[in-house]
């Protein structure tokens, strides 16, 4: 899975492109720690190109959200595909994390 980052209105936008499975989750976990320790307190995962998420992927998003919450920051996700949305709904992640349909709405809510 690839990640691309950019900043807009004080929000670190991370585009997730590909499959968030076990190996990708390990890599993403390390990146999240680096971003947070570098001072990024508001992180938005743009999931428009995320085609798949496994349990490992869910865990890394949960750990990331917990880490950011501890730093008094905010984390959100946007543009979930239909199958990622299904996983979020079945697991209840849709209720515990901030999820938006739209990138602009997400940025507005976070900034």
């Amino acid at each position: 899975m690839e990640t691309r980052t950019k900043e807009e209105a004080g929000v670190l936008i991370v585009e997730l492109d590909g499959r968030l499975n076990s190996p990708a989750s390990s890599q993403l976990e390390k990146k999240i720690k680096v971003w947070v320790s570098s001072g990024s307190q508001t992180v938005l995962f743009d999931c428009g190109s995320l085609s798949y998420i496994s349990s490992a992927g869910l865990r890394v998003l949960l750990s990331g959200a917990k880490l950011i919450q501890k730093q008094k920051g905010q984390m959100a996700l946007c543009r979930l595909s239909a199958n990622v949305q299904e996983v979020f709904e079945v697991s209840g992640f849709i209720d515990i994390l901030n999820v938006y349909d739209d990138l602009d709405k997400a940025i507005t809510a976070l900034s």
Partner: protein
Amino acid sequence: MLRFPEEIILLLLDDASGKMAKINDWSLRYALAGSVLMDLALEDRIDSDLESLLLVDKTPIGYKSLDFALAMIAKEENHDVRYWLEKLAVHADDIKEQALSGLVEKGILEHREELLLWVFKSRVYPVIDGSAEQEVKLRIMEVLFSDIIPDPRDVVIISLADACGIFSAILSERELEHSRGRIDQVRRLDLIGQAVSRAIWDIDASLVYAMQPQGL
């Protein structure tokens, strides 16, 4: 750090008498099977999605029941979480024995044999170092009585504890009523935990059905 089978067994033991709480055999079997799978998942040996359980890395961990399960999973592919719960539930007695031995080795429990009716020997495991158990309980309480985002390890232990009915023993009726929604919210967050709950529910439901009076 304790393995999940050890944490669950520790929560189920009465501190003073060292006896296990009485819970349904199938609840304990599925919870122990689930605890092994969840440990393997957090060790990045397996992964899962809504349809299947996937092998990620077959390198042994060095803990017998986990490595046993991992070797089984490495031999067969393309099964879902429920399949592996059923397969591992058969070995729940071994998983429990290893968890008890592990806790004794770590100096948390003491292995004692007591005489019942002055004739039959019974093994009991009184707690000799309560700090590990307290730590597990504190983690659980912190998650249940706040809206903090739980750590994945806390999600697992809450899911397994609920499957074993532990909360009715460690929470008052009022606390349980107050936290029921939060327990349900947190335990859903782990897909393996969901499969454990469903497996137990299916057995409970089939028993209720079997006990219904049948038409002649």
